[in-house]
């Protein structure tokens, strides 16, 4: 989608290249994180995509077309752009800000208006409340949402994001990251995302390009980089405790195994049979096929001969599918249980994560062959 070929950039009056012989292929629909310390060339790299900075040598292709051959304005109108300070236009309303690029593209008023509502809903702001607000009336997180909406306005296929959540407090930042990932699941844009925060890179990135002094020292998925840092610089950037960090990249939906249901009216023998068949040690209780927040397990079934009643245990809490292995481990430590339940967004209990599964999965990742 975006292909850098031996791209270098040297600023006037500088002895070294800000970006040095960079070759990088960013695939359609992925979030590619550019990460590194300040001065590593990550922002320069990103700004060369929409020609805010011209490379000194090398070429950049988007969809196979050399961007030199594309009109700069046309190119930029088709690339979403979000920067740390957001750069919302303070004299315009939220709606006018979002409308900027569609207006330039000559969309009809009705189409723009509909698009503004659609985008505000996407970023979870009520259009009726927010359309007419000025940026100064918004909180940091809300401004950032409007920034995202504005960048998405004309439905560009590529988005450039320069430390978009850098100025937010940690709680809002984590929330925005989660929400942005959720939005990305729907919109599947090709995203170049600049950050100096390796944690953010691990969390947001499909792939991470680690830059140091203008050179790309490693390119890989977060898991690959955690498992096999290319050099001491990358190791240091990751900062140790790799296995714990990997646990942020493994999610309950991959970790859990499904649990079968047993109807409330069935007896203990039937339940024991179901357990033996399913291979799991627990069953979710159900009434007329609807899962309840109760379960029986092989141990509790020893308390009863016939009726399930005495064997039924309540499900106190459950994690969401998107919770990480780290969340899961933390929850197990908190409850003192060696397992926990996983529920979907509609609070339907879907499965169980066992401590053993968690251990096995994390150490598999730790010892995976270099991809």
């Amino acid at each position, binding site marked *: 989608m975006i292909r850098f070929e031996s791209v270098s950039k040297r600023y006037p009056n500088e002895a070294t290249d800000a970006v040095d012989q960079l070759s990088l292929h960013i695939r359609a629909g992925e979030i590619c994180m550019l990460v590194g310390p300040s001065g590593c060339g990550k922002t320069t790299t990103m700004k060369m995509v929409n020609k805010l900075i011209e490379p000194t040598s090398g070429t950049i292709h988007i969809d196979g077309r050399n961007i030199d051959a594309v009109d700069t304005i046309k190119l930029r109108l088709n690339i979403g752009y979000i920067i740390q*300070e957001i*750069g919302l236009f303070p*004299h315009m309303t939220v709606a006018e800000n979002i409308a900027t690029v569609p207006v330039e593209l000559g969309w009809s008023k009705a189409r723009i208006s509909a698009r503004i509502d659609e985008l505000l809903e996407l970023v979870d702001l009520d259009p009726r409340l927010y359309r007419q607000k000025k940026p100064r009336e918004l909180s940091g997180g809300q401004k950032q949402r409007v920034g995202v909406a504005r960048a998405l306005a004309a439905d560009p296929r590529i988005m450039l994001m320069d430390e978009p959540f850098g100025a937010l407090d940690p709680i809002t930042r984590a929330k925005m990251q989660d929400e942005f990932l959720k939005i990305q699941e729907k919109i599947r844009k090709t995203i170049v995302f600049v950050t100096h925060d390796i944690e953010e890179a691990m969390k947001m990135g499909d792939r991470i390009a680690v830059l140091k002094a203008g050179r790309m020292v490693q390119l890989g998925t977060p898991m690959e980089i955690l498992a096999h840092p290319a050099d001491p610089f990358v190791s240091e950037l990751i900062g140790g405790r790799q296995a714990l960090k990997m646990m942020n990249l493994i999610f309950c939906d991959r970790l859990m195994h499904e649990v079968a249901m047993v109807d409330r009216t069935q007896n203990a023998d039937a339940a024991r049979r179901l357990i033996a068949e399913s291979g799991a040690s627990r069953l979710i209780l159900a009434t007329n096929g609807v899962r309840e927040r109760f379960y029986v397990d092989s141990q509790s079934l020893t308390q009863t001969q016939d009726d399930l009643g005495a064997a039924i245990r309540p499900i106190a809490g459950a994690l969401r599918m998107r919770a990480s292995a780290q969340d899961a481990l933390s929850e197990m430590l908190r409850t003192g249980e060696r397992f926990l339940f996983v529920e979907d967004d509609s609070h339907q209990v879907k499965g169980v994560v066992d401590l053993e599964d968690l251990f096995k999965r994390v150490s598999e990742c730790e010892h995976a062959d270099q991809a």
Partner: protein
Amino acid sequence: MEFIGFFAARWETILQLTIEHLVIVLVAMVISIVLGVTVGILICWSRTLARIVLNLTNVMMTIPSLALFSLLIPVLGIGKAPAIVGLVAYTQLPLVRNVYTGITGINPAIIEAAQGMGLTERKILFKIKLPLAFPAMMAGIRTATVMGIGIGAIAAYIGAGGLGVFIFQGISRTNDKMVLIGAVLISLISILTDRALARVQRKFER
């Protein structure tokens, strides 16, 4: 009582001089604003140019207005034309400086966002820079206009007419009433104009 009588006896002259004053200042200010805003915008492209122009306007303002008008006599003679030229030159500083600081004071992130989104330089100027610099620009226009109305009085010295005539005649005839009428009317015009401009500013700032 005596004062009112004096005023009533000369109200036609006073009205005529007031209108004359207003016309001179109005013409000068229209030219001055167009010139000052244009220059203010243009010098944003080059820091060196900005420094030169701002220093030049600064120097222009340090010349005593009486001297400036006198200096124009050999070039433009006497009357309204040199008065207008003088006023334009004199009121450039607040205009140019305010437009310049108004534009260069905009958060660079806003301009970068606009460029990155694909707005042309022209669009950025008209849709982003000028609206954002508007309050500063308007403040410059108000200062310049009030200055222009005041200095306009001195233009009477080179035969431009206006309320300055009353003041100068009052001085030479040691007639306090004439000086007072001229001064009060000029102050009144200044205050009213400033208020009217403030209202315009508020209206456009939404």
